[in-house]
């Protein structure tokens, strides 16, 4: 089975405090720790596990600048066979449709049976995989937390729905799936693993290579645009307890007692 996994380099929210810059035009990107989007990492692991069972190859593709190459190498160190960097100034400021347009052109350059994306990324829209599937007119399922290969043309998949329940479907190949976290346990990648793939060539493809009309992507193709960033205010905010650990703990016990938190 030929599998393409679309991955993205994102600021790691577990390693960073995300702050808005002084103009509100972006988040503060200096000194941010970046990593592969968590959902995408599960998607790559799933792809590797599938080809370990049925054979084939895994290609990882990322839209981004040169720095996205490190993310591709990381995923190749996990076991992906090939990497493709999709990079062009014309790709910048694409909305979901623009990104899906770039990926569609990439898919059509290859011969993929299965295309995986993460269920969502840093922007939280959970849109790219579904848009790509519609553009390719292939079947799609989101929030996938189980994949079983039935035969050459069919997968059995599970979708995570509400309340911990799971919807089971049969889906025909070629198809697009967006992968939910928790579907597997992504393998650990050490420095040594990354060194092994350090010299593997990763081709870079731009709009011209992919035959994309640049009017359909980037800022000019975007029907949805982010205009500024701000810090949300959801509630009145917590009353913050300060002091050394002893003082904090004494105060917490008092509060817990008064609220019936200690049985």
């Amino acid at each position, binding site marked *: 089975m030929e599998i393409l996994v679309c991955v993205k380099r994102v*600021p790691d929210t*577990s390693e960073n*405090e*995300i*702050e808005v810059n002084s103009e509100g035009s972006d988040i503060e990107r200096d000194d941010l720790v970046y990593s592969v989007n968590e959902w995408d990492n599960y998607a790559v692991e799933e792809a590797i596990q599938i080809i370990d069972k049925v054979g084939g190859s895994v290609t990882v593709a990322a839209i981004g600048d040169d720095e996205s190459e490190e993310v591709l190498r990381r995923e190749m160190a996990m076991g992906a066979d090939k990497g493709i960097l999709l990079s062009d100034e014309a790709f910048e400021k694409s909305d979901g449709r623009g990104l*899906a347009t770039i990926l569609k052109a990439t898919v059509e350059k290859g011969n993929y049976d299965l295309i995986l994306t993460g*269920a969502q990324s*840093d922007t*939280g*829209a*959970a849109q790219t995989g*579904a*848009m790509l599937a*519609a*553009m390719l007119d292939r*079947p*799609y*399922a*989101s*929030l996938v937390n189980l994949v079983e290969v039935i035969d050459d043309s069919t997968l059995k998949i599970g*979708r995570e*729905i*509400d*309340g*911990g329940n*799971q*919807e*089971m*479907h*049969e*889906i*025909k190949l070629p*198809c697009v799936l967006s992968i939910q*976290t928790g579907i597997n346990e992504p393998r650990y990648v050490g420095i040594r693993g990354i060194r092994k793939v350090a010299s593997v060539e990763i081709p870079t493809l731009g709009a011209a290579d992919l035959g994309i009309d640049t009017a359909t992507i980037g800022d000019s193709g975007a*029907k*949805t*645009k982010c205009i500024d*960033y*701000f810090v*949300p205010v*959801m*509630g009145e*905010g*917590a*009353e*913050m*307890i*300060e002091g050394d*650990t002893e003082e*904090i*703990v004494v105060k*917490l*016990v008092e509060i*817990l*007692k008064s*609220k*019936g*938190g*200690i*049985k």
Partner: protein
Amino acid sequence: MQIFAYIINKNGKADDTALELALAAKKLDSEAQVTAIVAGSGIDSVCQEVSAAYNDVWKIDHAALAYPDSEIMGKILPKLLPEKAVLLLAHEYLAMDMAPGLAIRMNSAYIADVTDIEGLDGSVAKLVRQEFSGMVSTHNTCDLSDGAVITIRPGVFATEETPAVGGSVVDKSGDIVIPETQRKYLETVEAEVGDVDISNSEVLVSVGRGIEEEDNIEIIKELAEAMGVDYSCSRPIVDAKWMEKSRQVGTSGKTVKPKVYMALGISGAFQHLGGIKGSPFIIAINKNPKAPIFQVADIGVEGDILEIIPELTEKVNELKG
């Protein structure tokens, strides 16, 4: 403007989001004609129920829609809706499956998980959404001139002031043809029942990513034991297989309604908060002072749970003697 709203329904009842979408449509354009779309099998009662809040209701009743398959609906709706339609859906698992592809098939704009609607400037809507697990919000423009598919975060539009419109039901069932699809629904597998049903717990000690390592989970169990209460967790803990799924709080896990909720190393993504009902007293401890949890918590501590929790457990044990 004419706005459509796709109504989620189960077992003959409309989802809470049915009314929220009616409000969202009015907030987008107070003059809008708002049409509810109810699809399913045996849905007369749902149509009646939602008609009070909509100008009209389009009923699509078909045995093949007993399970609302997004692959089927995703092909029916672009044919049924007028060109350049504006369609609202609740941002949950059905919309995530269906809505982005609909926007492509309708050749319209798409914007997901909207948390507020600031208004309309000509054909351009100004909408608020969140990025980075709710740590920052953004203002966005969405050009509706070619139509749009917009998903609305459940729960953000309070349903007290439901518009009373009293619309009629229009049967559109004859206007559709069920398309062939390449995906077939098999069954829904119910969540496993765990050893403790946290949905009934009065007090929950709940842990998130801030616990860092599996071995540290023990300090949470010890605190819960000292307090004599149940423990639960957020999604990353279950993804890492450090606790069973039945202890996960959130929209994809359990809905809980405790009196007191301790959020320990939990940042407070909306999928987590969506599983906490009944306005409990929330105590949050987190290293990140900007964590969204501090906005909804009653009491907050900026600090490391790995330091504070063992001390707290000791103090609780002292108190109990």
